C-alpha cells in the first residue's frame, strides 16, 4: 500500500513541475520570438521571481523517485543518460542567463538569447526523456542494460515536439494573465493556434502510445477505463474553456484551464499505464523500496507538504496581478563620490615607536598566537580533557568581549556614520 502513496507523491511533484515550470519554460521560448527588447527583459523578470520555486518540484520528483522507487530511478536515469545530462546543461545555462540578465539592470542580448534558447533545449530534452521512458527501456532486475542510444525512438522525438507545444501554450496563457499592452494582445492571439497544435500533438501521441509502448493496455478493466475516460473528458472540457478564454477577460481563465488540462492529461496517462512504472515490465511493486523507508518518506513529506503549499501560495500571491517593474527606490540623496574626494578619509599617521618595542611585541604576540592555536587543536587532550575546552572558551569569550567593546567604541567615534544627518 505505501508504494501507491509514494507513487502519488512522485506524480504530484511531477505534475506540479509540469504545470509550474511548464509556463516558465514556455515564456522563455516565447521570448525568443518577441523582437522587442523591453518586453524580453520583462519576460525575464517575470520568471526571475518564481523559477527557483518552480524548479524545486522536479528535484522533489527526482528524489522521491529515488527514495521511494529506487528500482525505477536506477533503471530510468542511466537509460536516458544523454538527454538527461543535456537537460541539466540546459538548466544550468538557463539559470545563468536568467540570473545574470536580472542582475545586470538593463537588457543584454546575449543573456536574453541564452535564456530563450536554453528554455527550448530543456523542453526538448524533457520530451525525449518522457518519450524514451514511455517507449520502454531494456532492463533486468531493476538495472538498465541497454545501449547508449536506447532513448532515441520515433516516439521520443514526437514527444519532444509535443511537449514544446504544451509548454508554449502554458506560456502564452500565463502571459495573458500577467502582462498588459502589446504583450497581452499578442499572447491572446497566440493562444488558439497553439491550443490547436497541442490537441493535434495529444492525439498523435495518445494513439502513438499504443504502437510505441511494448506493454499491453488493460482497458477491459472497468475501473481503469472509467478513470481514463473521465480524465480525457476533463482535459477536453478544460481545452474548450481555454479556447473560449484566449483574448477575453478575465485574464486568468485560459491559464487556469491550461493547468487543468495538463493535470487531467497526466492522470489519463497514469490511469492507462499503472502499475507499470517503467515499460515494458517494471512494476510499482518491484521498483519500490522497503516498507519502512516508504512510510518515513510519505509521513515526513506529508507533514511538511501543507506548509510548503501554504508558503508557495503566499509567494505566488505576493507577485499576483500584472507585472510591474520593481520599484527602484532611488538613493535618498547622492553622496559626493569617491576618488575626487579622497581627502575625506584621513591618511593614517602612526605614532613614533621604538623599533625594539615593536619587535618584542610582535614576537610575544606570535608566540601567544602559536600557543592559542595549539590549545585550540586540543594539544593537551592527551594529558587532561578540560584544559583545551576551557582555553577555547576563554579565547572566544575574550574575542566576543573585545568585539562588543571595540564595536561600540567605533560607533561612538562615528566610524559607521553615513554622510548626511547627525546621529540622535
Amino acid at each position: 500500500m505505501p508504494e501507491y502513496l509514494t507513487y502519488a507523491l512522485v506524480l504530484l511533484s511531477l505534475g506540479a513541475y509540469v504545470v509550474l515550470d511548464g509556463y516558465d519554460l514556455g515564456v522563455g521560448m516565447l521570448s525568443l520570438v518577441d523582437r522587442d527588447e523591453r518586453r524580453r527583459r520583462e519576460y525575464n523578470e517575470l520568471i526571475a521571481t518564481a523559477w527557483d520555486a518552480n524548479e524545486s518540484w522536479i528535484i522533489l520528483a527526482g528524489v522521491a523517485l529515488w527514495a521511494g522507487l529506487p528500482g525505477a530511478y536506477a533503471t530510468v536515469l542511466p537509460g536516458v543518460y544523454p538527454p538527461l545530462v543535456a537537460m541539466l546543461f540546459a538548466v544550468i545555462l538557463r539559470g545563468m542567463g536568467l540570473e545574470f540578465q536580472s542582475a545586470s539592470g538593463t537588457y543584454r542580448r546575449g543573456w536574453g538569447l541564452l535564456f530563450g534558447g536554453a528554455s527550448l533545449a530543456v523542453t526538448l530534452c524533457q520530451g525525449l526523456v518522457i518519450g524514451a521512458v514511455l517507449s520502454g527501456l531494456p532492463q533486468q532486475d531493476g538495472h538498465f542494460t541497454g545501449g547508449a542510444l536506447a532513448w532515441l525512438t520515433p516516439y521520443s522525438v514526437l514527444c519532444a515536439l509535443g511537449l514544446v507545444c504544451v509548454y508554449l501554450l502554458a506560456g502564452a496563457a500565463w502571459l495573458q494573465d500577467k502582462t498588459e499592452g502589446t504583450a497581452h494582445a499578442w499572447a491572446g492571439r497566440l493562444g488558439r493556434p497553439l491550443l490547436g497544435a497541442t490537441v493535434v500533438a495529444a492525439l498523435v501521441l495518445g494513439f502513438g502510445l499504443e504502437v510505441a509502448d511494448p506493454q499491453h493496455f488493460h482497458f477491459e478493466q472497468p475501473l481503469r477505463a472509467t478513470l481514463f475516460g473521465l480524465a480525457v473528458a476533463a482535459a477536453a472540457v478544460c481545452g474548450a474553456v481555454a479556447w473560449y478564454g484566449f483574448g477575453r477577460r478575465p485574464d486568468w481563465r485560459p491559464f487556469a484551464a491550461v493547468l487543468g488540462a495538463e493535470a487531467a492529461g497526466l492522470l489519463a496517462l497514469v490511469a492507462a499505464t499503472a502499475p507499470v512504472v517503467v515499460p515494458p515490465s517494471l512494476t510499482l511493486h518491484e521498483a519500490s523500496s522497503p516498507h519502512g523507508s516508504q512510510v518515513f518518506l510519505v509521513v515526513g513529506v506529508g507533514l511538511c507538504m501543507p506548509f510548503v503549499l501554504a508558503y508557495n501560495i503566499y509567494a505566488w500571491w505576493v507577485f499576483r496581478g500584472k507585472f510591474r517593474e520593481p520599484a527602484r527606490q532611488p538613493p535618498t540623496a547622492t553622496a559626493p563620490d569617491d576618488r575626487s574626494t579622497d581627502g575625506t578619509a584621513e591618511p593614517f599617521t602612526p605614532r613614533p615607536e621604538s623599533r625594539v618595542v615593536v619587535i618584542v611585541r610582535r614576537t610575544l604576540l606570535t608566540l601567544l598566537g602559536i600557543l592559542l592555536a595549539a590549545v585550540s587543536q586540543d594539544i593537551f587532550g592527551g594529558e587532561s580533557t578540560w584544559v583545551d575546552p576551557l582555553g577555547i572558551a576563554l579565547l572566544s569569550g575574550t574575542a566576543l568581549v573585545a568585539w562588543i567593546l571595540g564595536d561600540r567604541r567605533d560607533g561612538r567615534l562615528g566610524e559607521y556614520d553615513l554622510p548626511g544627518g547627525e546621529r540622535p
Partner: protein
Amino acid sequence: MASSSVVELSRWQFAITAIFHMTFPALTVGLSLLLAVAYTVYVRTGNPLYLQIFRFWKKIFAVGFGLGVVAGTVMTFEFGLNWGIYAHAVGPVIGVTIGMEVITAFFLEAGFIGIMLYGDGRVKPRTMALASWMVAAGTLLSTTWILSANSWMQDPAGYTEVDGQFQATDWGKVLLNPAFGYRFPHMLLAVLISASWFVAGISAWYLVKRRASALPFARRTLSVALGVLAILMPVQLYAGDATAVFMGGHQPAKLQAFEGNWKTDNNGYNLVVIPDTDKGENDVRIEIPHLGAVIGHDLTGRAEVPGLLQTPPDERPNMWSAFYGFRAMYFTALAMFATAFAGLVLRLRGRLFTSPRFLRWLVWMTPAGIIAITGGWITAETGRQPWVVYGRLRTADAVSHLSLTEAALSLTGFVLLYATLLTLWIRYIVRTVKAGPEPVTDLRTPAPEASVA
C-alpha cells in the same frame, strides 16, 4: 560490471560537479544569515546603512544562490545517472534523507527567495525580514540533512542489508549517526567562516581603496565579519581536530593517507611528500620532527604516526589527494587563525580600519574559506575510497551501465560549462564590487538649523 575507465570518468565528473556546487553554499549559507541580520537591524533602527548592506550583499547572494540551485539540481540526478547501482542500493536510506532535505529545506529557500530578492515595495518590511530569516533557516537545514546523508556513507549505522540493498532498521541511528555528531558542527562552522572571510576581504578592499561613499558600509561589515571570525576560529580548530581523531579511529586508512606516512616509524609532521604508490614509500619528504606526535596528543613527542602499509593494498585510498587536500585545509586554517588573532589584537589597539598592511592581507584572504572547505571535502571523500559506503559498497561496483563515450562526453561538457560559469561568476563579483554599494544618506535627523546657520 562496468569498465574501470567508466568508473574513473564518473568519479572525476562527480568530484568536479560536487566541488563546483559546494563553492556556492560555502558562501550563501553565511551570507543569508548576514542578510537576515542586516535587514532585521534596518527594520528595528531605521538606519539606512543596514539597508545599504542588505542591497549590496543581496546582489552577490542572488547570483550565487541561483548558480547553487542549478548545480544542486545536477547533483540530485547524478546519483542515478552515473551511480545507478549505488542509487538502487542506498535509495531506501540516503534517498529518504535527501528527500527530507528537499521538502524541508530546499522548498523553504526557494519559496521565500523570490520575496526576499524582489519583494521590496510589494510586502511590508517586517515580511521581508521574515522571508530573509526563512531563507537563512532553509540553508542551515539543508546543511544539516546533507551532512547527515554524507556522514552515513562515511560511517553507516542503523541498517541491515537485504539482497544488496540497504534498509533502515533505526531511523534515529541513521540520521544521527556517530560521524554526523562530529562532521556537522565542523561543516557548519566552516560555511559561516568562509562567508566571513569573503565579506571581510571585500570590505577591506573598499578601505584599502579609501572609497569615500563606501567607508561606513565597509567598516560596519568588516567589524562584523572579523568579530565572528575571532570567536569561531578557535572553536573550529577544536572541532576539526575532534573530527580528525574520530574519523582516524573509524577509518584508519584515511588518517594514514592524509598524514602522508607509509611505514609506522615517523613521529614528525610531514609538510611535503611525494608518494610512490607502487613501491609504498615516499620519494621526497619534508617534515618537522616530533610535531606529528604532539598534534596526535602526545606531548612527549615520541608517539609514531600510523602509516598506510598497515592497510591491505586493495583498501588503500590515494595518498596524493588525501594528503594535499588535508594540507590545503589545514595550512589555510592556520593562516585564518593567525589573521583572526591579528584582527583581535588590532581591534583592541583601535587600529582595525587604519592598518594598511593588514587590510591588504585581508583582501588576499577573500577565498580562504572556500579553499579550506574544498580541501577538506577532497580529504573526506577521496580518503574514504575505495568505498562509496564505507566498508560495505565499493565505488567500482556502484557505477551505472554506461558506455565510455557517454561518460567522456558528459564529463567534457561539465568541465567546459563549469569553467565558463566560474569565470563569469567571478567577473560578475568583481564588477559588482567595483561598482560598489549604492550611496545613501542618513536622513533620520534632518537638521534644518544647521543648514540655515
